[in-house]
């Protein structure tokens, strides 16, 4: 039996169940978790599911009467997961890597012994996978950062990271959807709004989607920024 089919079931409280996999996160596990989630969310007794790298949290509408019942239930459901390939969106996120938007770019270049052009190229050539959303409304947990850009977080977090900042921290890269504290290295900024509470859904990206960063100049940055304010900006997708 594949390791994908081995998961642990525990109760977090009287209405919440956690499914956890012991294998390391991979694209295969991500696909499995996303399909698993959408399958069990159809159940009328289930309020919603929230995913992590290798876990699914399940909120029930009623109190757990038997955890064993639910374990059996989920195992039965899991067998129904199909091997079909689901079409995912691949979003093109414009990023300006100019120094005025990238206060830590020179430092990253020095630390990694790569010239700034190479840092930008490595960052914008890659294709990243949205694993899930968390930390802040609209914050995407992305996998796929080139290992040549891995860089320990700052010792002292910054209190006010600007909205739209594109950053590297550890083995991850991400976009700060709003002003927030954080310890990652800022290498660019996107004019694209990642979270809009007035819209439903409030974020365009979903777990399983792909994103790439596309380098733009500061003129294009301003243009997109104003288009977005007027509500006539359309984010591009790859075909």
């Amino acid at each position, binding site marked *: 039996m594949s390791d994908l089919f081995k998961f642990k079931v525990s109760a*977090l409280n*009287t209405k919440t169940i956690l499914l956890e996999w012991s294998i390391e996160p991979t694209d295969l596990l991500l696909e499995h978790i996303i399909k698993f989630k959408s399958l069990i969310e159809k159940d009328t007794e289930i309020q*919603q599911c929230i995913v992590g*790298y290798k876990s699914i949290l399940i909120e029930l509408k009623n109190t757990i009467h038997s955890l064993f019942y639910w374990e059996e239930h989920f195992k039965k459901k899991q067998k129904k997961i199909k091997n079909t390939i689901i079409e995912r969106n691949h979003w093109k996120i414009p990023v300006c890597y100019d120094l005025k938007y990238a206060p830590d770019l020179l430092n990253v270049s020095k630390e990694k012994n790569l010239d700034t052009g190479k840092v930008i190229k490595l960052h914008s050539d890659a294709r990243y996978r949205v694993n899930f959303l968390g930390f802040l*409304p609209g914050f995407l947990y992305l996998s796929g950062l080139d290992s040549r850009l891995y860089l320990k977080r700052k010792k002292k977090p910054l209190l006010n990271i600007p909205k739209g900042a594109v950053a590297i921290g550890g083995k991850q890269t991400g976009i700060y959807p709003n002003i927030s504290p954080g310890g990652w290295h800022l290498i660019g900024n996107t004019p694209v709004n990642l979270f809009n509470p007035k819209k*439903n859904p409030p974020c365009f990206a979903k777990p399983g989607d792909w994103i790439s960063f596309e380098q733009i100049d500061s003129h294009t940055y301003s243009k997109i920024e104003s288009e977005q304010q007027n509500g006539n900006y359309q984010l591009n997708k790859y075909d």
Partner: protein
Amino acid sequence: MIEILQTGIHTSIQDIGRHHFKNFGVPVSGALDQSACLIANSLLNNSPKAAVLECCIKGPKLKFHDNYYICITGAEMNARLNDEILKNYKPYFVKKEDVLSFGIAKLGCRTYLGISGGIETEKVLGSRSQYQNITSSDKIIKNTIIPIGKSNFKPVVGTRVKEQKINYTKINIEVYEGPEFKFLEKEQRKLIQKKIFHISSLNNRMAYQLKEKFAHNLPQIWTSPVIPGTVQCTPDGSMIILMRDSQVTGGYPRLLQLTESSIQLISQKTTNNKIRFKILPKII
């Protein structure tokens, strides 16, 4: 409508919370003491989903622009309507131009003000609960007007509600073992239940940090979902109890999980208050 004359320390509009957008990283929010919020609404015959004011440590001063019924629940906060002292857990009739003021919390630290008809600010993502970057502000603002819904509530003459006596000084906090609890050494599992912890000054709607450190050798985990009441432990041993404005995922080991009523109890506690964790049998 009600007018905010003074805001108090941290007064915010809260309801049962924003439950359906956690997948977008949106915290659940909502009244920290859900039970006090629910009672305020039910005594006014409001919907359980109606929004109330959550007052923390020191409450606001408000002027009513119409006639309403109000009900105060949760912590004692020396509420006065004009000059009259008000009791908690009792509906009162208020008239246009009346002024309601709160003092400093005596027992507990969060007080709820329910108003017949409920607060009717705009719903964002299904809730009126204030949270930074989702609603326009994370707390009420001085000299602003808050809209109130319609209600034909009238208390039934002759009926009376028994005054609620909730013991907020209770130090035992009931918890379940968290997902990473099993990785603790045997001695640590005992210690976590014996030790008296104190709430540090870092306590707010997002999280309550404890003063005492809890040394452990647990590794960081792959970022995984967390919920209100999850107790995380950082690599330096800081214990953090997540509250309703917390993020929806976290990477620190989750040692304990507070029950719903423990979350309510702890939300009535503040800096320097003592707590002790009491672990309940596993749910099977």
